[in-house]
């Protein structure tokens, strides 16, 4: 939020007129790329895809893969919508069950 205060002399030269402008700056919320568990895809394949699509190291990719496996889903990436769509397209192109959902400002 930007607050601008400005003082101007009145046209009659008397007391000043004070104006206040408030500008609310709302940053775009991130979008989450979510991968869902499925009973077909081997764990090693999921890990490899995470490494190749996101450039994650093996440890992080395996942690996310296990989160998908045990919790049924995992947020594997968050950020600008356009990039999230591109990542989601790559995951679907590799036959992972991926979807997009709006994130929150805290993420």
């Amino acid at each position, binding site marked *: 939020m930007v607050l601008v205060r400005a003082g101007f002399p009145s046209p009659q030269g008397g007391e000043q007129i004070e104006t206040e402008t408030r500008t609310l700056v709302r940053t775009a919320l991130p979008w989450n790329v979510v991968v869902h568990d*499925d009973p*077909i895809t081997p764990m090693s*394949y*999921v890990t490899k895809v995470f490494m190749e699509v996101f450039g994650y190291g093996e440890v992080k990719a395996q942690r996310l893969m296990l989160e998908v496996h045990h919790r049924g889903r995992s947020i594997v990436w968050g950020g600008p919508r356009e990039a999230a769509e591109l990542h989601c397209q790559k995951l679907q192109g*590799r*036959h992972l069950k991926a979807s*997009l959902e709006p994130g929150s400002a805290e993420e």
Partner: protein
Amino acid sequence: MRVEAYVDADGDLVLDRLSEGIVAALGAIPALLLATGDGVEERLLPRTYVDDDDEAHWQRYVRPDLEHLFASRAEIVTKDLRQVRISPDGPYYWLCIPVRHRAAWEAALMGACHALAAKAGLADDELQSGEPRGSDPTKLGALAQIQVYQALVWLILEVGGHTCPDPEVVEEFDLDADEDAAG
């Protein structure tokens, strides 16, 4: 049924000791990637957005690219399968997957698994347990074929990282044994 895999001097992946049944299963991949109906599209092109307008936009602009990608992979697999040869070691077949096609093969095998599961009407619990309800022969056949595809993905991933044709890197996979669990 034991398949061998290794990386040759050019970095290409060789699958050896393939049975006639496995070669036939591989031959089914292109048609599965291009299949429609029976819920195949829902499996291969799952819903992306909860919001209907966002989803309509995705279907209009992104789905064609994905369909094109799957069709391209079907062509790659078809082309490579034309090079299947009878192995000099016996009544087996031998397939060379060029290194530049490896990722396409991995994804094509996974896509074929999903399409097959949809066509056979296999539910998640049946896929998880490997046992279809009612011992449906169609489902049993589909499950066996899916297990072959999964095993080949595992084999390609295991061997693919190696770059020299050292006998040490030869991996064998017994298709009768359990393989990597699903993620």
